[in-house]
């Protein structure tokens, strides 16, 4: 019996019990935002958004560098970072949320609400984001869109430019997740 026990342990340590992958990562997630006004339409894209998806905890965490948003015009980029978002003070925007009623077994696309805290410009706000989640063999694709109000995040627009920036900004996102081992 004494001899069998260490042998048993040895065998167990080699056995791979098909550990289910429950952490996924997207390093090149895309987040774009749109501001539509009668004076000017502004659009920017960030293609280096980081996101972690935890299947067990049913949580999504997203982090992005504000300076990585690309605009069509240099001046827009400068205004965005220097005046509106103040990237020196608040370089990143985050979101952490729980997927409500997430079905981890199905491969069908499911539309779910992700409820969590969105932090932009140093201000955190409880936000519900409608998301489409699709599971492919090894990966997950998550996409969706939602609107934010610039007032909620204390983004101040000078009166001269107030007709150039919309009060409500539309945000679109898409993430392609791959298995993640820490």
């Amino acid at each position, binding site marked *: 019996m004494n001899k069998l026990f260490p042998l048993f342990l040895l065998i167990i340590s080699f056995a791979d019990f098909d550990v289910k992958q429950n952490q996924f*990562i997207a*390093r*090149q997630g*895309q987040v774009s935002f749109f501001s539509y006004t009668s004076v000017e339409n502004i659009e920017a894209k960030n*293609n*280096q958004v*980081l996101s972690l998806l935890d299947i067990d905890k049913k949580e999504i965490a997203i*982090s*992005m*560098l504000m*300076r*990585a948003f*690309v*605009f*069509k*015009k*240099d*001046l827009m*980029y400068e205004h965005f970072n220097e005046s509106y978002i103040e990237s020196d003070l608040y*370089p*990143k925007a985050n979101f952490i949320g729980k997927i409500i009623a997430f079905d981890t077994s199905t491969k069908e696309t499911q539309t779910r609400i992700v409820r969590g805290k969105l932090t932009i410009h140093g201000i955190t706000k409880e936000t519900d984001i409608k998301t489409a989640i699709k599971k492919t063999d090894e990966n997950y694709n998550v996409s969706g869109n939602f609107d934010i109000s610039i007032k909620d995040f204390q983004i101040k627009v000078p009166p001269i430019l107030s007709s150039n920036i919309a009060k409500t900004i539309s945000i679109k996102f*898409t993430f*392609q997740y791959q298995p993640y*081992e*820490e």
Partner: protein
Amino acid sequence: MKNIKIILSIIIILLLLTCGYYFIVPMFTTSEKNLQYKTATLNVSSKDLIRAYTLNEQKSNHLYAGKIIEVTGFIKEISFLNSRNTIILNSNAETFGVICDLNPNEKEKIKLLKKHQKIRVKGICKGFLKDVILLNCTIDLIPNE
């Protein structure tokens, strides 16, 4: 009197034109300027860059963020996700890398690249999330060393 008026109006027009050139035209130019002919402020290896950021993010941002830097490293992955041309450079750790989003002008050069090839990338460093992020990059194919 008439002559002075004409000269004055010409001067004013010239002034307006120069103002226009320096202030108004930049408002409408694109951000995707080709960095090929600009000199980099710093030259660093992908391993050192990532190590610097993992040790002290704030200090590294001070050193690199917003600046044009040249990073030398081995190609970990070439990606065309979301219609972008991206190269990810290696580091010591398996999980971290340097994400280099390429300027559209470099599309032809990508076809010449292979995994594990050593290249030099010049781009604007934006910061660090889990990888260092470089935008508007141009590629320098290093001749065989």
